[in-house]
């Protein structure tokens, strides 16, 4: 479904990604784990066209998307839940969700998806008239995921959804990610919380200093000595 071929991305003269290649198949949950500053977020920003790669190719369902601006990438069916959630603080929960469907005009379908995300996260239905900035961290993460789902994506990109959340909220969020995946959305999950991520993922990639250093099934990565030492603290 998504394929990165030797992607090199730069910030000015600083190279953040070195020939990153990875593949995500339809229906999978694929995770990208790695330390702070390894290039995980940059990988997502390259996919979305916010920081386009200087070299290499990104193919979505066979067509090159590394040459497209962000709005075209979203229109093709790729949504992102960014690091830090980036909720619009001065807008209501409902307005945040409506903006998720910004590029759509099928009113009936939008309403359907709104009902769907509000059943996934009933707390958002309760808070629909509240300003986004007044929500707790966990609620904001739920809102960010819901907002991304409002675009009815075929590929959902998640950047550190567990960041700063209480363990019980993390469990809840990851359960929802699995549920969304089972409902047919392919998921690319970027995480520092390697243990949680590998538990729900089918396959995983390990990134270090802008390079992919390991690639395997999530099972195998959980058992891998190197991964256990470096990312699982065992």
């Amino acid at each position: 479904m998504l394929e990165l071929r030797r992607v090199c991305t730069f910030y000015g003269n600083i190279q953040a990604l070195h020939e990153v290649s990875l593949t995500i198949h339809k229906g999978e949950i694929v995770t990208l784990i790695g330390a702070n500053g390894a290039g995980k977020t940059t990988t997502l920003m390259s996919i979305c066209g916010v920081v386009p790669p200087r070299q290499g190719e990104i193919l979505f369902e066979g067509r090159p998307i590394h040459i497209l601006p962000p709005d075209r990438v979203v229109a093709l069916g790729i949504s992102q839940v960014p690091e830090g959630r980036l909720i619009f603080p001065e807008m209501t929960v409902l307005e945040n969700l409506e903006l998720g469907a910004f590029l759509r005009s099928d009113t009936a379908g939008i309403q359907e998806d709104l009902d769907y995300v509000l059943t996934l996260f009933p707390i958002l239905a309760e808070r629909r008239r509240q300003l986004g900035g007044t929500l707790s961290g966990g609620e904001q993460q739920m809102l960010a995921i819901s907002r991304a789902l409002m675009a009815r994506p075929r590929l959902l990109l998640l950047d550190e959804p567990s960041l700063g959340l209480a363990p019980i909220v993390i469990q809840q969020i990851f359960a929802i990610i699995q549920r969304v995946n089972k409902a047919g959305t392919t998921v690319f999950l970027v995480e520092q919380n390697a243990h949680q991520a590998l538990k729900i993922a089918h396959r995983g990639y390990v990134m270090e200093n802008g390079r992919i250093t390991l690639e395997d099934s999530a099972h195998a990565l959980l058992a891998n000595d190197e991964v256990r030492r470096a990312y699982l603290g065992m």
Partner: protein
Amino acid sequence: MDLQYFFELTLSGLTRGSIYALIAIGYTMVYGIIELINFAHGEVYMIGAFTGLIVAGILGTMGFPLPAILVLAALVAMLYCAGYGYTIEKIAYKPLRQAGRLSPLISAIGMSLFLQNYVILVQTSDFVPFPSLIPEFAFLEPIAHIFGSSDFLIVVVSAVLMAGLTVFIKYTKIGKAMRATAQNRKMALLLGVDADRIISVTFIIGSALAAVGGVLIASHVGMVNFAIGFIAGIKAFTAAVLGGIGSLPGAMLGGLFLGLAESFGAGYISSDYEDVFAFSLLVIFLIFRPSGIMGKAKVEKV
């Protein structure tokens, strides 16, 4: 205390403040989206007044009735200035989008000087008489000596335009996208909002509102020249800062506040110091409440 004098000053402050508010909206919206003070905005207001003058001249010789001339002059000025706003952004600011904050600011000042000198070349630097386009309303007769038809029309038209804009920003899809872009440009981008389009819409709306202000004020005062945009622009910018730059209701409130303050200052203290009151207020606000009436102190969250 003379109550009638007080009302007189209040009404003239409202008239003046409405125009400041109309122009301030352009400053504050642009600042909200791209954090730029568009110094050429006052010139767009001035060009709006000249456009109104030209259209009124043409329609007048064709024998149009007064109300029709006024409406058409304002509409043409809005469209024409919308084009100016759009073009100014494309020429002077868009190429500098990645260039930090100082370069577009200097470019704005350059654009302002360019437009003033361009108008001097085509319209001379003299004051040109502007026809009175505003019909006399019979129902205002009893108070016409303190609140004439043009005052009335300025206040009403400004109020309607600002209410319309508020509804537009709050409820339409593009209005929501504008707010989203102002709150978090990167996230808006990730949702598929085309930032360039939003920026263009912002310049178009701000310029069109300034153009209406230009036509109304020119008709009220009865003359225009190339420099009217400078002082009106600085005053409106002051209003936007008083209200809290970036905040739409702040610009409206700030405009009215400044208009009233100037009117009372001129009426009760001395009209020679009119501008001093405005800019003293600006200094006082910048010292004690730099975020303005409606603005919030920016908290950087990590």
